[in-house]
């Protein structure tokens, strides 16, 4: 790490960058406060913490922009065990989250086309295509992504990430650490837990070498505690969707999810979610919902359709339909009680084996049924995501069971999380209209 790099980092991130972002946040907060009235016909005004979210995310990418030369950087999958990295002060970049940002900012399609021109099939995951296309074209809406010093790929969300990270390893010529988490068709067998723990332990010396420092077990414990605290708060945030009216929609959760994915293990993330929860509780106390008139409640399954989040949110809000919960955002909440700071590596092995995407289709059905009861929803929207097979395969028999066993109607929406070319607005609108008519709204 060079002295000049560190100086640039210090100035760009900690001095000028922070001040600019803070100023920007204060301006937004002031604007929100001074706005006479929120004019949306169907939605209540956004949460007051929103400018802080923007500040956190911007700071994350700003840190990334200046990281090379000052800090070691790891590109990691969304389900990777991040605690060891954080304890070693390695800065994480999440290509999936970057993919989502590109989806929201509507640049993903252009990057996907770049990847396709280089030979990557359109049938591949659109996050992967977005990321590969962004690297090949050198374009990103976040300014600049730092080069990785190491790649960490955990297969607990899909096998796709393994092939994707192999492409990245080839491109950047850096080490790829694979944490292979055997898929759990049933309960986790002890040999699977042992296998994962072994791999996490084996990754530590590799990461220590890259970080140029030894892992402090005290620091790992503290980071793990922060992770657990953040996940617990996130759990209470998503559970606030149980209230009637719900103070938060799944669309809000999709956006406020970023810190729990990218910044677990930090005090500022815990503080942020604590403030968010306080605000939600205040809204609940006042009987204030995310929608001005909540008439029906739905559950969402699968990734968001990032390039149509606002469109879909408005379409549902117009009809008084609140999307009060989602299996996707629940995934970062439901494992909170498995995280044990006193046994960081053992609990890490268990936690990272158990995400919903690493468990069977029957488990997901049971999760949905529990959520249907808990959140008292009237129906389920299943996003059949063309380029995310692990999340989508199983939705057809799940839909049948939701109607026959859980007694709620479920609609399958054909789309894609990041590729607008696999989305037909007319078709989705027509199907939703028919579905909402069945619900009586």
């Amino acid at each position: 790490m060079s002295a000049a790099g560190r100086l640039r980092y210090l100035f760009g991130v900690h001095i000028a960058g922070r001040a600019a972002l803070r100023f920007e946040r204060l301006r937004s907060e002031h604007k929100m406060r001074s706005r006479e009235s929120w004019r949306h016909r169907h939605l209540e005004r956004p949460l007051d913490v929103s400018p802080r979210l923007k500040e956190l995310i911007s700071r994350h990418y700003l840190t990334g922009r200046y990281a090379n030369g000052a800090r070691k950087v790891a590109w990691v999958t969304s389900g990777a065990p991040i605690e060891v990295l954080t304890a070693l002060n390695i800065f994480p970049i999440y290509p999936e989250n970057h993919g989502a940002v590109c989806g929201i900012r509507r640049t993903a399609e252009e990057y996907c086309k770049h990847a396709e021109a280089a030979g990557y099939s359109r049938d591949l995951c659109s996050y992967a295509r977005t990321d590969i296309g962004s690297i090949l074209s050198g374009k990103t809406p976040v300014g600049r992504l730092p080069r990785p010093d190491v790649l960490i790929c955990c297969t607990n969300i899909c096998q796709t990430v393994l092939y994707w990270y192999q492409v990245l390893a080839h491109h950047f010529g850096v080490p790829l650490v694979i944490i292979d988490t055997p898929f759990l068709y049933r309960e986790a067998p002890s040999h699977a837990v042992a296998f994962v723990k072994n791999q996490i332990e084996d990754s530590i010396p590799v990461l220590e070498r890259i970080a140029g420092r030894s892992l402090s077990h005290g620091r790992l414990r503290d980071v793990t505690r922060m992770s657990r605290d953040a996940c617990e708060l996130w759990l209470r945030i998503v559970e606030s969707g149980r209230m009637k009216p719900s103070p938060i929609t799944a669309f809000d959760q999709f956006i406020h999810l970023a810190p729990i994915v990218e910044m677990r293990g930090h005090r500022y993330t815990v503080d942020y979610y604590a403030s968010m929860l306080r605000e939600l509780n205040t809204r609940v106390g006042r009987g204030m919902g995310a929608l001005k008139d909540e008439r029906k409640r739905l559950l969402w399954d699968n990734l968001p359709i990032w390039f149509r989040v606002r469109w879909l949110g408005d379409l549902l809000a117009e009809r008084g339909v609140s999307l009060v919960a989602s299996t996707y955002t629940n995934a970062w909440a439901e494992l909170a009680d498995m995280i044990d700071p006193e046994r960081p590596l053992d609990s890490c092995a268990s936690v990272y084996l158990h995400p919903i995407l690493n468990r069977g289709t029957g488990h997901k059905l049971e999760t949905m049924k529990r959520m249907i009861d808990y959140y008292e929803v009237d129906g389920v929207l299943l996003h059949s995501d063309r380029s995310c097979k692990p999340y989508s395969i199983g939705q057809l028999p799940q839909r049948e069971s939701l109607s026959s066993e859980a007694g709620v109607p479920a609609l399958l929406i054909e789309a894609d999380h990041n590729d607008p070319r696999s989305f037909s607005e007319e078709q989705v609108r027509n199907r939703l209209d028919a579905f909402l008519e069945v619900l009586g709204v």
Partner: protein
Amino acid sequence: MIAAALPILYPRELLRSFGVLPVELWGPPGTKTAIADRWLQAYTCSIIRGGLAFLAGGGQDHADIILVPHGCDSLQGLGSVLLDFPVLSKPALSFYHPRTRSRASVDYLEAEIESLAEELQKITGREATDALEATIREEEADSVLAKLLAGRLQVALSCRDYYRLVRCREYLPAEQFTALARPWLSSESGPSSAMPVLLSGVVPEPSGLLDALNEAGAVVVADDTIACGRRLTPEGRDQSAYRRMAERMASAPPCPTRGASVEERSRHLLDLAKRSGAKAVVFAVVKFCEPELFQLPLLKTALERAGLRTTILEVDVTEPLPQQLKTRMEALLETMS
């Protein structure tokens, strides 16, 4: 008992030691897949859709067990659906192959084989017998298969008939396969070709692909398909049967479905091409197959840099070879002649 075994790798010898004969399903060709629409989205590959459609359409009547090893996200989904929903009437089993190669992976594989043995015991109601002998029989069959694949030009058969012989390994008991295939190893006058081709991809299907190659004067001289060449598991050394099975599986040739990198695969392909004299590589890739599709751009570049010609044919194994793909292959062969 019969196990209908979906792709890709599983311990055949373990099944045999429980008196179960695995019969593999790679498609099968010609299956009408519409029946699978009830459970699987259209964007799953034709191997998965064909396999399920075949079983649900009556194929399961010939099987006692359905085995779905975990080779990719789609096989994972299919296995999980069969385990969790009443789609078929026969019991389903799964098997996870690790994606890393280390001592810990072999330990994991051994424990996974033991778990599968427990499941087989429950279903068959019997103990495993002569597991080590069963392993050695499979090793012999694999060794004959390896020689058959390495000595293609000594086998006087068209590519279609040659693969018919090779792929008997997918359903015959190991000892019968060995007896059937061994005589072909000593035949000396096979086809000669000015256009030797290495076949990679998923499976040598549709068979029209092989006919088209022969008609154009080309011969497949080496194989790197997931179904054939990438499952040539070598002999193990350990005298404990389960450990030996694990060792064998962990040493199979590089395949992305077991975590192999692009570099490992291109090294392997270049070596195969060098040994067989192949001048071109035809990738018969099943549409929607992520493990294959991801590596193709980099593989293609590496092979072409080494002077090999390549073409990618995206196929549906349940459908005949489209004319457009035939034309593409002919175009490749023309550049070689």
